[in-house]
């Protein structure tokens, strides 16, 4: 039924696994009813998931494109659709369409560079796909630093994967931090922007930021403060979206549509946009 150019009619997806990451974030594994990946995507792209009768919402695809079996979505419980999804059990069908948006420039700009990923809270979700992509093609990139912070140890997303896989990789440095001291936590305590400044990275890296708006703002200021150039810093935006294809007008900021021209923006591109995001 779905013709090639059909943009608004979704495919059926099946939730095959639900992983509880933090008290309010779950990671859902989604495949088509015949067990395949719904579509190919690039790191940083998004998909529209919907629950008929509840609504449709845009989520970043958390799993790496190199995973050819399924897609994963890390979803924080915060609205109608996400509330519903959090109650869903494996086997539940949902609808899925995509991929939408411009990916991170992993194959050109990032190639050969040292990479610095900075994430806060559920902001790790969109970065996980690009981090894993870069880890998969490890020889194409230089050193990888990951700074990830959250409210508490329990709120760290993908903690197991970070400790067991990312930290053990060659040339990958993981720096974790939590907002307040906590029993059983011997790592760094403090906010991400300050931690980034303390760590004081080489300014020739490409930095990728994702997290709550306030974290992005201060981290970006911090990075610029230690000499980063805005043309080397990337981030992702999130606005309300309905169509996903740059027509419904909802995510329009300046002459850009976040669903089509974003969600990945270089920070100097962002400066060209009116401050409405």
């Amino acid at each position, binding site marked *: 039924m779905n013709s090639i150019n059909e943009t608004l009619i979704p495919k059926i997806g099946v939730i095959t696994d639900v992983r509880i990451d933090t008290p309010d974030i779950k990671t859902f594994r989604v495949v088509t009813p015949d067990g395949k990946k719904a579509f190919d995507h690039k790191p940083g792209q998004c998909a529209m998931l919907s629950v008929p009768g509840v609504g449709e919402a845009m989520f970043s695809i958390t799993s790496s494109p190199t995973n050819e079996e399924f897609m994963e979505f890390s979803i924080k419980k915060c609205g109608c659709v996400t509330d519903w999804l959090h109650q869903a059990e494996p086997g539940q069908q949902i609808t899925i369409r995509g991929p939408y948006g411009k990916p991170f420039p992993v194959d050109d700009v990032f190639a050969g560079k040292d990479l610095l990923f900075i994430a806060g809270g559920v902001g790790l979700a969109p970065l996980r796909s690009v981090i894993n992509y870069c880890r998969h093609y490890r020889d194409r990139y230089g050193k990888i630093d990951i700074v990830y912070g959250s409210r508490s140890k329990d709120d760290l997303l993908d903690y197991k994967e970070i400790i067991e896989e990312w930290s053990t990789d060659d040339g990958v440095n993981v720096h974790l931090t939590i907002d307040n001291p906590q029993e059983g936590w011997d790592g760094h305590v403090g906010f991400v922007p300050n931690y980034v400044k303390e760590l004081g990275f080489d300014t020739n890296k490409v930095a990728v930021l994702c997290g709550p708006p306030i974290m992005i703002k201060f981290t970006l200021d911090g990075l610029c403060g230690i000499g980063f150039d805005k043309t080397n810093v990337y981030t992702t935006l999130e606005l*309300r979206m*309905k169509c996903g294809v740059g027509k419904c007008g*909802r995510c329009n900021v300046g002459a850009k549509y976040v669903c089509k021209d974003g969600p990945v923006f270089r920070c100097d591109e962002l400066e060209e946009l009116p401050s409405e995001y």
Partner: protein
Amino acid sequence: MRKCSLEKINLLFAEIAKNAELYLPTQQTDGSAAYKKWEEGSVWSNALNTVRSPKDFFFPQTENLMKFKTEGKSIEVVDTRNALDDFVIFGVRACDVKSFDVLDRVFLTEPVDSFYALRRSHGVIISLACQRPSETCFCKTFGIDPAAPAGDISAWKTETEIFFEANTQKGKELLEKLSALTEECDDTVVSEQKEKINKFMDKLPLKNVTTDGFGGGKTKELFDLPEWDELSQACLGCGTCTFVCPTCQCYDIKDFNTGNSVIRFRCWDSCMYSDFTKMAHGNNRLSQKERFRQRFMHKLVYYPENNDGMFSCVGCGRCLAKCPISMNIVKVMKKIGGK
């Protein structure tokens, strides 16, 4: 060029309606005009234009996209589209014809909106020159000639006759089917009328409205102007301007649970509404000023930036006539563009 006596106009309508659904502006009980399907006895309104724009034909206010049937954990997606018959829209003014170009650039660029494309491919547009433009008209600002409307067939009406000229293959085919009711003629009368209309155009009070100061790349310059406060202060936040506008194309996608299935439909939405950009975690346009600015920036800056300088306004004047507080794009253009 072919002509037909106005006495025979109903025969002509009947002939068109034989092969396709015919829509034309008819008079409503309140005196205004609205596009209605022609049937025996329909009266063609002589109002300058309809309250609702003809964008409805290609981008209806409400349109079902699909249906979901859910059972237990599984979902079935049902395509609810029916085959569409050809239809003819008669009496579209030059500004509204141009508005289809504006919409085309949104819906027909990749990825093509198949719902819109399907309707667009089935529609034949018979445009009509404006004999008596209103004081609210400013189509000239956007390079539109109300004396020479585009469309598949252009038409000119005089006191006694109506003249037709086909512009496209679709138009030629339709005009051929009407050959028994029309006769070949030269363009003397039409040329005279064009001249007369152009004279009127020079008298219009809004003839000097220009797009100077607007266009792609002006975002930084215009976005933070203090004038937006003043312009938006009376805005009620209703959707009248967006809903009567022939070029406003923002939409919402919603689900309706009928009790036995879920219908997903799309409907017009307005950037003037407070919930337009509201998400679970906040709203990036909290004040009416921001929402008001978005509408005009989109029409006069953002759209042209993405569409080779074409503005998303055709000067039809509907918002001038219908805004409850008489704030409109002309006032915005004069206030801000003149800077």
